[in-house]
């Protein structure tokens, strides 16, 4: 929760009471406070009791209470009984959502433990806790993390991510670069396998995190754009009250109050990653072009994953494996279908019990249909990228912002570890844009304004037959969407 930082609890209480009195109908009151280290816990407890009493009197539907990390790390028995009383009152009345770190000490608080996304594990940088006992690392693309917000914000540790390439355009490399850079920035070891002659050379093309100044200015201007034009008095409170899952371009919501490292960085493709990030200890590059079979790669993966074994409760450093174009034709194993499937199966088995994420990209056009389906079933998270033709008037009519798009990204499957509920989100297709040719941005597809004069639906079959097979599925989705809108 975002809110104001107060130095003195008394002042905080006064402010909150003022908020309560002035905003009786507000859904959420931003009574979040951080405390300076020297403030004793008893004062915190008194303040929180006062806050809750205040909200109870006002009968506001929800209030927010955040306890600082130092309190949360105490074992439950040592917490003052007054804090436990407050806590049990919270549970009973369900008026407050308690900060996620507290939720971990009392595992029975179920209904609000879903709002875990704002808390990052304080011990390990770049790793977040999510629902169902899974931990997450960032994908390196803020928009994709935001899309997976409901899931936990990123790729779950222990999962296998597959990206289906488009033979016409190398957009999967953008995703791979962001993924690898994010891991290196967080100090997470990386194993990179590629069919190229010099895998190590690829590291020189990895992007570097954008400078902080640019981040903040982007956020501020986009916030101002999104801000409603309302009377100045309300705007003061509205800005603080906005629930974080509604605001869009706020990348700093991922970072903790005093974390120096963001969970997800913005990467600048024009600035290469500094060389000290990819030392030999952190990055291991493997070439798969010349090896007879996948046994060598499997051994590399096995030894890498053995270093990241998951032990219950420990927070070992997360690891990342990136395998590019696994079935590329220049590799000798590319026609050994069952060999590759067996490799993926054993890799998946190994990664499930480790703190690592594996990203594999492959061109599905080079595999048989049935093999492609097998690969798709093995993936936990399945993404696919497609190219967009440069000058396509029909597409320009269908989509707004067509000129800036370089490709499309489709999320076909999302990892469901430890749960049986499928994740069905409203939008699954995104446009890939390179803002200012530096920053990778994913946007939901928006239909261009309907041409009032025509009045007919966009989907005439003649138009769609011209497009290649890879783009057809995305255009089908667009057609369905336009039909829905026409209805």
């Amino acid at each position, binding site marked *: 929760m975002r809110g104001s930082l107060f130095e003195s609890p008394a002042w905080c209480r006064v402010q909150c009471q003022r908020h309560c009195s002035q905003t009786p109908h507000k859904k959420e009151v931003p009574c979040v406070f951080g405390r300076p280290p020297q403030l004793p816990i008893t004062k915190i407890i008194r303040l929180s009791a006062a806050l809750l009493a205040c909200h109870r009197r006002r009968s506001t539907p929800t209030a927010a209470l955040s306890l600082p990390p130092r309190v949360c790390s105490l074992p439950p028995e040592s917490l003052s009984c007054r804090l436990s009383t407050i806590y049990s009152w919270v549970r009973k009345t369900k008026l407050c959502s308690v900060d996620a770190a507290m939720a971990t000490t009392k595992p029975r608080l179920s209904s609000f433990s879903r709002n875990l996304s704002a808390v990052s594990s304080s011990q390990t940088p770049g790793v977040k806790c999510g629902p*169902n*006992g899974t931990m997450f690392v960032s994908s390196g693309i803020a928009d994709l993390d935001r899309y997976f917000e409901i899931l936990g914000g990123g790729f779950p540790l222990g999962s296998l991510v597959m990206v289906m390439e488009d033979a016409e355009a190398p957009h999967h490399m953008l995703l791979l670069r962001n993924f690898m850079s994010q891991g290196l920035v967080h100090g997470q070891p990386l194993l990179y396998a590629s069919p190229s002659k010099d895998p190590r050379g690829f590291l020189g093309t990895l992007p570097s995190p954008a400078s902080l100044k640019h981040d903040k200015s982007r956020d501020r201007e986009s916030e101002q754009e999104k801000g409603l034009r309302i009377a100045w008095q309300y705007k003061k409170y509205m800005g603080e009250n906005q629930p974080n899952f509604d605001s869009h371009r706020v990348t700093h919501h991922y970072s903790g109050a005093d974390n120096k490292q963001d969970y997800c960085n913005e990467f600048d493709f024009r600035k290469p990653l500094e060389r000290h990030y990819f030392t030999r200890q952190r990055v291991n590059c493997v070439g798969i072009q010349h090896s007879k079979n996948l046994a060598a790669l499997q051994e590399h993966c096995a030894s890498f994953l053995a270093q990241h074994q998951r032990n219950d409760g420990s927070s070992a450093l997360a690891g990342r494996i990136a395998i590019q174009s696994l079935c590329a034709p220049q590799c000798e194993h590319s026609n050994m*279908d*069952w*060999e590759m*499937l*067996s490799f993926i*199966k*054993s890799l*998946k*088995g*190994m990664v*499930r*019990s480790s703190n690592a994420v594996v990203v594999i990209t492959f061109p599905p056009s080079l595999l*048989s*249909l*049935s093999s492609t*389906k*097998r690969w*798709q*079933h093995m993936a936990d998270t*399945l993404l696919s990228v497609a190219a967009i033709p440069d000058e396509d008037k029909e597409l320009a009519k269908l989509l707004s912002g067509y000129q800036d798009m370089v490709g499309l990204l489709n999320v*076909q*499957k999302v990892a*469901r*570890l*430890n*749960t*049986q*509920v*499928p994740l*069905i989100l*409203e939008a699954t297709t995104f446009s890939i844009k390179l803002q200012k040719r530096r920053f990778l941005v994913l946007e939901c597809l928006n239909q261009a304004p309907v041409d009032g004069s025509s009045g007919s639906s966009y989907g005439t079959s003649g138009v769609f037959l011209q497009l290649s097979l890879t783009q057809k599925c995305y255009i089908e989705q667009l057609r*369905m969407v336009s039909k829905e809108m026409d209805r």
Partner: protein
Amino acid sequence: MENQNLNLLDRALGLDGPSEPWPLSGRVVLIEDCVETSGSFVLHQLVKRSLSPTSSNVIIFVAFANPFSHYDRILRKLGCNLVTQRDNKRFIFFDMLMLRCPDEGKSSEGGLVLLYEKILKTICGLPGDKKDYVTIMIDDISLVEVAANGGSDYVLDFLHYCHALTSEFDCSLITLNHEDIYSSMERPTLILQMEYLADILIKAEPLSTGLATDVHGQLTVLNKGTSHRLGRSGNKIHNFHYKVKENTVEYFYPGSRV
């Protein structure tokens, strides 16, 4: 069984009758799904029903897809504690995630033969009263094929041997396979044989209009040779929609959901 809330799937499978004898014993169930709609929730539902306190089933779960912790977490939310059941010897888990049969042709089947022997030994090792109520679950068959390096003949042999167990020991065999893998093949022998062997065929597929948040897909249950209360038997097809949640799965007829 009568006390529990029975949903449409239970009725379609014939689980709404008396729980002794177990309606699925001696029968083969095949669950088919695709990339868009996963059918594993049906498997979880069957595990929960088999391990209900009123029945005395023993489950031998051969897992190729997910580790024990995954199923444990899911079933716990559904109301079934797998750890306790494992300690009570009602849930026997075979972790086959890392099974890989060696490359040479002649011993490619070796791994599967050993697996079958292990299952047989487990069943024979059960105490007398529990031997009649065994359920063998395999998740999933496409990974068994991968483990056998593509030797679908060996996989078929293995399945036939397991099928023989259903008549020998009256156990039930429940398997999961991905139908869309075989739909593009010229001669999809494996899936056709499995569909022929199966007494009950459960197919999970998306709606023709695509995926939605309210309805996750549709289930088609083909129950061959059901015996109704009136004594007749025949094929019965059920079709209904479903929505999967953490604690339960809702089944409803198309259009009947408010």
